[in-house]
């Protein structure tokens, strides 16, 4: 077996066999079929790479080579390296969310900004005093150079990268606010208040709070936020230093302010028996039953974000985002049309559901033909199916364990909301078919989009709700799934289809 090396591709870390050609790892055009003759597969690459060869010199000037340009089809990853593809693909980041009507009575004079700092993406909106949305924007979280998941980033902070991680985040927030203001034609100095939501790790990193308690059990976080700081303290420099910035409260180490905001936006806590789930690399679930609140989180892994899947990619142009089975044949829909470059989370759930229906995949997850092609250039391997099994089972088991701990069945729920980008694009029939969600929940699931940002907006425009958000955060009981035998059983057996 070859050793693996770590490759950071456009800010996202993955492990690849040592000696892999970069073209094997990145999905891009290779009109000459990888012979190094067309020069179309140029990428920026740094780190431990094979030496520049003659064919590369033919296509790249000395200056370009010095800048780090290489041909992906000629360059091998000999050790850890970083690659940036010049792809013009626009990431599909959800900024829209569904929410209830409420009383708009902001404390800012002219304009306010709501921001959600996700582990993967950052989204923001600008509002006026009447609550009109003037502009919205989104970008990828620039901290991804330090790892895709929160634990790796916390590790980076503990290894001394605290300033860098905080700084890139503050600069990204600066840029987003500047962009919002430019689009709306207003001065950033007229922004009178901001609300910045995020998970507990993101708020720790943003505020420069020591994240050590988040790094290991018992995960006893000291700072749970639900407080107002100033832009100056945070180092968000595009705003006047005295501008108040409200940081919503977190429930626990892995159920953060983003979940509290999603609950506020969705109205999950308004009564009855309701649940909201955000399915991402780290999934969070919140349950309201008889006006009592329960929550848990589970590490589902990044499979549904397209990471760790051989043909996986984000939901951007070129991604298969939907698969149908018609008369025994698979039909793939590709974002933006044209050639498929890979498959994103929603496409992956569909593909697995279709393979099960077509009996090309059995209930144990065994793939008849390895790999199985979904469409030209996109195939699923046995290892991809295993990654899907781990991810979908973590979500299913988290939901099942939280429900059974409160002695309720999926059919007892009055409402089930699904927050986040993946939940929004996910086909519910596929979700039930592959066992990502209990069938009863898939039937009643209501996608609520970027509910965290919607909740941050609510807290910005209606500051009186901040007390309510603190009350929710403080009274929510968190169920620790790590080491829970019921979860372990649900998780292991939930891997079946």
């Amino acid at each position: 077996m070859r050793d693996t090396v770590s490759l950071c591709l456009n800010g996202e870390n993955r492990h690849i066999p040592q000696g892999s050609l970069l073209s094997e790892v990145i999905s891009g055009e290779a009109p000459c079929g990888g012979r190094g003759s067309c020069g179309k597969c140029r990428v920026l690459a740094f780190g431990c790479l094979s030496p520049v060869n003659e064919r590369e010199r033919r296509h790249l000037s000395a200056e370009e080579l010095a800048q780090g340009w290489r041909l992906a089809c000629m360059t091998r990853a000999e050790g850890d390296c970083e690659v940036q593809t010049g792809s013009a693909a626009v990431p599909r980041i959800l900024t829209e969310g569904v929410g209830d009507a409420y009383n708009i009575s902001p404390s800012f004079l002219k304009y306010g900004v709501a921001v959600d700092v996700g582990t993967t993406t950052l989204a923001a909106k600008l509002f006026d005093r009447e609550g009109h949305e003037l502009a919205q924007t989104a970008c990828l979280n620039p901290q991804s150079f330090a790892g895709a998941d929160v634990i790796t980033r916390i590790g980076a902070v503990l290894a001394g990268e605290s300033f860098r991680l905080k700084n890139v985040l503050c600069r990204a927030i600066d840029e987003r606010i500047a962009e919002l203001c430019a689009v709306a034609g207003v001065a950033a100095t007229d922004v009178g208040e901001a609300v910045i939501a995020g998970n507990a790790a993101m708020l720790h990193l943003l505020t420069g709070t020591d994240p050590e308690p988040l790094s290991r059990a018992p995960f006893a976080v000291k700072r749970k936020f639900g407080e107002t700081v100033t832009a100056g303290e945070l180092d968000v420099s595009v705003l006047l230093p005295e501008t108040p910035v409200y940081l919503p409260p977190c429930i626990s180490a892995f159920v953060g302010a983003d979940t509290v905001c999603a609950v506020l936006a969705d109205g999950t806590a308004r009564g009855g028996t309701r649940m909201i789930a955000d399915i991402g690399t780290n999934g969070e679930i919140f349950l309201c039953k008889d006006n009592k609140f329960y929550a848990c989180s589970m590490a589902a892994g990044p499979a549904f974000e397209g990471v760790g899947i051989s043909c996986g990619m984000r939901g951007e142009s070129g991604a298969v985002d939907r698969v149908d089975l018609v008369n025994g044949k698979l039909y793939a829909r590709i974002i933006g049309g044209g050639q498929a470059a890979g498959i994103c989370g929603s496409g992956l759930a569909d593909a697995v559901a279709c393979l099960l229906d077509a009996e090309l995949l059995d209930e144990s997850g065994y793939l008849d033909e390895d790999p199985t092609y979904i469409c030209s250039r996109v195939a699923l391997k046995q290892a991809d199916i295993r990654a899907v099994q781990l991810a979908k089972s973590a979500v299913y088991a988290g939901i099942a364990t939280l429900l059974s701990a409160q002695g309720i069945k999926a059919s007892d729920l009055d409402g089930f909301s699904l927050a986040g980008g993946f939940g929004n694009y996910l086909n519910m029939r596929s979700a039930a078919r592959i066992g990502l969600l209990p069938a009863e929940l898939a039937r009643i699931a209501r996608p609520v989009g970027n509910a965290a940002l919607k909740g941050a907006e609510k807290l910005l425009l209606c500051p009186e709700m901040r007390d309510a958000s603190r009350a929710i955060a403080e009274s929510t009981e968190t169920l620790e799934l790590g080491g829970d035998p019921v979860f372990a059983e649900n998780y292991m057996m939930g891997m079946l289809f």
Partner: protein
Amino acid sequence: MSILQEICETLQKGRAKLMKEMVQKALDEGIAAQDILTDALLPAMSVIGEKFKNNEIFVPEVLMAARAMNMGTDVIKPHLAASGVQAAGRVCIGTVQGDLHDIGKNLVRMMLEGKGLEVIDLGTDVPAEKFVSCAMENDCQIICCSALLTTTMDVMADVVRAAKAAGIRDKVKIMVGGAPITEEFCRSIGADFYAADAASAADAAVALCKG
């Protein structure tokens, strides 16, 4: 098909209840407990381990097979003890301090038991000293440490240090595993063996116990 072959297949199918009956039937027919173990149970778990390593089967099948194995061993255990049969080796296992993720650790335990090793499961969030004192009190040949978090894997170095400090480093091997662990990390902390998956861990453990 002989009854031992039938037991072997029943185990692989993970039919725990049937296992209990069949192992009892084999004993009643006068087959020695030791033979049931070495000719039916262990070979069946070897097949499971091999298939798991090759991605042909996955966690649920391993779990069900391991449960069937336990049903079988429960029936023969008193007989093995009575005839003075020794386990192939003794190991202790746990997730390191600060880490609660025990599913991978549990899979390794099942595979180790499937090789006929005696496993002392220390559970989750286990301090370095506890691994070492357990190994000393029970004469374990191997300490197996698991970690899933990049932030807790360094605790494994503490286990190696604690074993050295207790003066048992030459008597006990230290095996490490978990998602963020690599061969290189294993070497850097001075542990003895890195296992990439549960089946490889079990193979290596058997080899290490044989010395």
